[in-house]
């Protein structure tokens, strides 16, 4: 009797009893149980609604792939990794990388790029013009972020710098634009560099390095001795010939194979006691006298910015190709001393890195 009265008392309010025998559960408890059930059902749905696998970045490398070095911030893609870290990505958690290399042979870029395209990566990153060009030949749909040389519009890689329009974007490093400037800097360091030996790789003859060098040399009244080297084995012979020609200095034109052979180029130069002007800072670090180019660290950092934008959904055709604004002059004082060259103060003033 008492129970039923309690039940009816509850029924007058907004707390309804369970209409069955046994202990009447208060309405609010039932409500909580319902809620718990709904949440339990909703959670797997919410989990399933999470974004799928983390984005995959394809690295098209010239040097052999070395993920351990990249993770430390050095190597071909080290600055890219560092840049991505600074933008908030954790390698391994937020991103995964697939690296395919041409193993120091430009002819193998095509196979490596085709493999990457087949892996359906979300973006392909390269650090050189030849690699970017091959990637562009292989795929017109996967976004490509690359370092470009020369005129990307003339090369058919983009419609304009402000709006590339296709699937390729990236940064220029003024490889060709700085040729005359490098010659001028060499002249500043060594007042009479004539005759001047020039190392050039005929594989990149489609870029106007030689033409620009000849033009600048005409302006400065320098006599050029151009030597074509297509394989690493050719450097010894080239240097012997240059020594025989009595060159006063060596001018190295940009090329991937040359970049990989920097140590050989530098040590041969020291053997023949020749000052060398190259483009990448590592040349000077390895013993060449000077190097001048756009700042590689800044450039590769910018590549990370492009990757970030593309992963967030930007269309590569809408991302302008950037020109370099930071430049880097490296000077090796130890080499200067060894060669008996007294560098003028103006060069030391302009230098961004002086190696002792």
């Amino acid at each position: 009797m008492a129970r039923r009265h309690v039940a009816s008392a509850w029924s007058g309010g907004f707390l309804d009893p369970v209409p069955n025998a046994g202990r009447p559960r208060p309405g609010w408890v039932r409500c909580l149980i319902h809620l718990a059930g709904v949440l339990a059902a909703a959670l797997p749905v919410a989990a399933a609604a999470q974004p799928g696998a983390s984005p995959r970045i394809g690295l098209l490398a010239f040097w052999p792939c070395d993920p351990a070095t990249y993770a430390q911030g050095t190597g071909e893609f080290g600055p890219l990794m560092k840049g991505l870290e600074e933008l908030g990505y954790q390698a391994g958690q937020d991103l995964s990388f697939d690296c395919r290399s041409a193993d120091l042979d430009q002819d193998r870029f095509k196979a490596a790029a085709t493999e990457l395209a087949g892996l359906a990566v979300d973006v392909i990153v390269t650090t050189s013009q030849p690699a970017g060009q091959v990637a562009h030949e292989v795929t017109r749909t996967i976004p490509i972020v690359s370092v470009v040389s020369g005129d990307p519009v003339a090369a058919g890689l983009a419609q304009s710098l402000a709006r590339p329009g296709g699937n390729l974007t990236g940064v220029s490093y003024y490889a060709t634009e700085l040729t005359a400037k490098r010659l001028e800097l060499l002249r500043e360091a060594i007042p009479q560099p004539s005759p001047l030996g020039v190392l050039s790789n005929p594989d990149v003859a489609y870029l106007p390095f030689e033409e620009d060098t000849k033009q600048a040399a005409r302006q400065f009244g320098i006599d050029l001795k151009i030597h074509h080297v297509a394989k690493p084995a050719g450097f010894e012979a080239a240097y012997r010939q240059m020594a025989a020609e009595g060159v006063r200095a060596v001018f190295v034109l940009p090329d991937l194979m040359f970049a990989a052979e920097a140590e050989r180029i530098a040590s041969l130069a020291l053997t023949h006691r020749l000052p060398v002007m190259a483009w990448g800072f590592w040349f000077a670090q390895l013993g060449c006298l000077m190097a001048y180019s756009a700042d590689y660290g800044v450039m590769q950092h910018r590549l990370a910015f492009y990757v970030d934008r593309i992963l967030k959904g930007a269309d590569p055709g809408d991302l302008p190709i950037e020109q370099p604004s930071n430049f880097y002059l490296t000077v090796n004082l130890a080499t200067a001393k060894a060669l008996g060259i007294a560098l003028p103060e103006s060069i030391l003033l302009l230098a961004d890195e002086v190696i002792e």
Partner: protein
Amino acid sequence: MGQPWQGLHRSLFGKYFVVLFVAVVAPLLAGGIGNAWFGYRDQRAMLDALLQLEAASAAGQIRNFLDGIRDQLGWTVQLDWRPGSEEQHRRDAFRVLRQAPAVAAITLVDGQGTERLHVSRVDLNRSGSGIDRSADPAVSGASTAGAWYGPVTYSAATEPFMVVAVAGNRPTVGIALADVNLKLIRDVITGIRIGTTGHAFVTDRWGRLVAHPDISQVLRGTDDATAAGLRALRAKVAAAGGAMALQSHDGEAVLAAVAPIAGVDWTVFVEQPVAEALAPIRAALWRTGGLMLAGTLLAGLLACWPMASPGA
């Protein structure tokens, strides 16, 4: 037996419920709504003031960037152009290139407006070229005002540059003209953070983007429609006298404030997404709502509690 008792308890329960509910919830409601309303007004006023301060601070930082370049250039216009002084001037110009990475090239003209020296990071240097620059507005501008800031030009239709010209304290030292790469304002602009999602950007007098944390918006070039839109935005916000809620040129709902940058006729826009700006207010509203809900439940429970005993 049940009917009259139920009727009685219903009205008793009802009365208890209504009285307790009103006694608890009504003041809660009144207090909550009043709090929310006045809180919103206070918060908005504070936000306005904060955004205006941020805009003024951002304008100051950009101004510092330009002043830094002007000051560095000042070192190159201290010595007369005498025969034999070329080397000293060249040295001074190189030192500016060292100290000011944003300067891409420096041209030194003498007291007659003739170019005597040009040094650059990219193109070849020139010495004693004899080019007559006396008709250049930069030269005449700097001679009269001491410093002259040119319009923003876009090299290769994409990279923003501007000419800064500086004169010395006497005509014989000539004028220094610098090509300034404005992409290097990037560090200043990205360093300006408004809350966690707000940002600042700069437009010139025609509404074209000069600096933006997303540099590609600058490099892409500002089309006429966007530039006109930014000019209109600038006028609207300036007229409002404080921060304004509006649609940014990206289509986001933001609170925006503007500040002019003296000397170059640029404008700094400071924007914070409305979601973040009003987050504290919304949090307060949720809190009040939660409290009211809890108060209602409590009132209900209190109303039911006296009913448990009469049944025994």
